[in-house]
């Protein structure tokens, strides 16, 4: 009972946090905006993998390989490398949509235009260009802020309802076609003035200002091991209470992880040394991509290995097919992991240990760092590790190694759980074993409703 009360208290704290973070207008727009860009990002990633296919550089002549690469590269250059553009449109669109304006797509395009206005349109003395690098990692943070401000301004001016009065007799549709003109013009003028204003400061451009003041410190912090462990533990704790950890934590960390990812991609394509260990793929492939949050594919394997109780065997069987593709709700709610004090230790500990192992095996060069390729999170482990590290077998081996580590951490705890279930099954003639009866935690069902 004591235990239960403590959990209830924690849940009462966590649920409002999840609710607040999740219902925050800007974080929602950010998350859904990234979702819009995701298909393009994955398309581009596929072509980075194909362009760097293993052994091709040895099979083909140097010229043929270069021609092959330059034939495929536009696919990723037009999508993955300039993902910022799509994210900005996505955020602008999704934020405007929340205000239920008539054509939210204007919110998307006005955000992109505002961002381009703030962008230096010169590259090494060549004018009339937009450097693609600012649409990748470098400009990502400015892109997010610009999208927020542009969409808000646009919304503000639309709601003010300043329109051009047409003389009587002009068809309604004609005057309506101008209805977006004033809000867009005013919004973009504000950004142009901002740009001009910044040219008088030592930063010279807004790009430079945001990059130096916000993006650099934040990504430096986010690329470190301590911040990553904090994020990982938070995700595990949320899930322990049956709340979707990533949807809550990632909306804060995604901009940092994607920016770090893109720095690696640029280095990978340029053939230079990859700067970051912690990236979007570090999290998605080496932590989540191991059967789902908490690397539960290892738990399933362990069930096959040592499970004696009917309950666990059943859960293992049920959880295997989705688990291979990193969907693990049957395990999380079925084992259960949610609210189960017996598995709290391995649930939190295993991901932290794996984070540390993965971090050091990459920072010491034992395993190549993630190459900036966004592998869909539903890609089965082993394959995903291979792809994410830019077709390196070491990535696959690291995942296999980590699976074994997770199994070892879980072993004693799963053994106890299995024994409890087994004894209970022996002692009861009932077919259905309810978790509550075994662990003594009352109200497990009502708890989450």
């Amino acid at each position, binding site marked *: 009972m004591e235990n239960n009360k403590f959990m209830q208290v924690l849940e009462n704290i966590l*649920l409002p946090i*999840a*609710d607040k973070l*999740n*219902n925050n207008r800007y974080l929602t727009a950010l*998350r*859904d905006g990234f*979702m819009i860009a995701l298909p393009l990002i994955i398309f581009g990633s596929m072509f980075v993998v194909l362009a760097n296919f293993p052994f091709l550089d040895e099979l083909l002549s140097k010229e043929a390989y270069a021609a092959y690469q330059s034939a495929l590269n536009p696919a990723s250059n037009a999508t993955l490398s300039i993902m910022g553009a799509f994210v900005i449109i996505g955020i602008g669109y*999704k934020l405007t949509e929340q205000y239920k304006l008539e054509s939210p797509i204007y919110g998307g395009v006005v955000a992109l235009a505002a961002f381009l206005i703030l962008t230096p349109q010169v590259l090494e003395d060549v004018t009339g260009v937009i450097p693609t690098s600012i649409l990748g990692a470098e400009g990502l943070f400015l892109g997010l802020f610009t999208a927020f401000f542009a969409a808000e301004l646009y919304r503000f001016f639309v709601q003010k309802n300043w329109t051009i009065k047409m003389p009587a007799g002009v068809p309604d549709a004609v005057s309506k076609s101008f209805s977006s003109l004033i809000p867009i013009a005013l919004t973009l003028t504000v950004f142009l003035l901002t740009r001009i204003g910044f040219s008088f400061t030592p930063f010279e451009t807004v790009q430079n200002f945001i990059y130096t003041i916000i993006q650099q410190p934040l990504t430096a912090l986010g690329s470190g091991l301590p911040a990553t462990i904090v994020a990982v533990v938070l995700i595990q704790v949320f*899930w322990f209470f*049956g*709340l*979707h950890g*990533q*949807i809550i934590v990632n909306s804060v960390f995604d901009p940092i992880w994607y920016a770090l990812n893109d720095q690696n991609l640029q280095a990978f394509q340029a053939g230079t040394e990859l700067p970051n260990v912690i990236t979007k793929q570090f999290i998605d492939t080496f932590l989540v991509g191991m059967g789902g949050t908490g690397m539960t594919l290892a738990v399933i394997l362990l069930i096959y290995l040592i499970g004696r109780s009917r309950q666990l065997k059943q*859960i293992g069987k*049920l959880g295997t097919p*989705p688990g291979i*593709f990193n*969907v*693990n*709700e*049957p*395990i*999380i*709610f*079925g*084992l*259960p992991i*949610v609210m189960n004090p017996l598995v709290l230790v391995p649930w939190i500990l295993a991901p932290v240990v794996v984070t540390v192992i993965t971090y050091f095996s990459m920072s010491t060069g034992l395993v190549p760092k993630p190459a900036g390729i966004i592998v869909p999170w*539903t890609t089965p482990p082993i394959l995903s590790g291979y792809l994410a590290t830019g077709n390196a077998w070491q990535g696959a081996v690291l995942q296999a190694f980590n699976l074994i580590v997770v199994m070892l951490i879980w072993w004693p705890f799963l053994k106890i759980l299995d024994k409890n279930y087994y004894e209970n099954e022996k002692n009861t003639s009932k077919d259905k074993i*309810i*978790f509550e009866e075994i662990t003594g935690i009352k109200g*497990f*069902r009502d708890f*989450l*409703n």
Partner: protein
Amino acid sequence: MKNILLACSSGMSTSLLVKKMQDIAKERGIEAEIWAVSQDKAEIYMEKADVLLLGPQMRFMKRKFSKKADELGVPIDSIDPVAYGRVDGAAVLDKALDLIGKKPL
């Protein structure tokens, strides 16, 4: 025809359940359209649904969706975590039908 909508973060884990629910509905001869979407599309699809069930891990979104659901008169609830873990199609289908039955006309 009953329209039952399920939603979770990306519509993956709820789609496991959808398959089971469809099988059970067929067995019982209930005509039902059952489908799963990601949370960002839930509000759009709500218009076609008679009931919206959220994955228990998304239960903190109930409040957010309630506004639109109330407007449309679509009952909304989160799925029982035990049934969710067992991918118990029958229990969730029962709950969905129950919620539709209670719907104020």
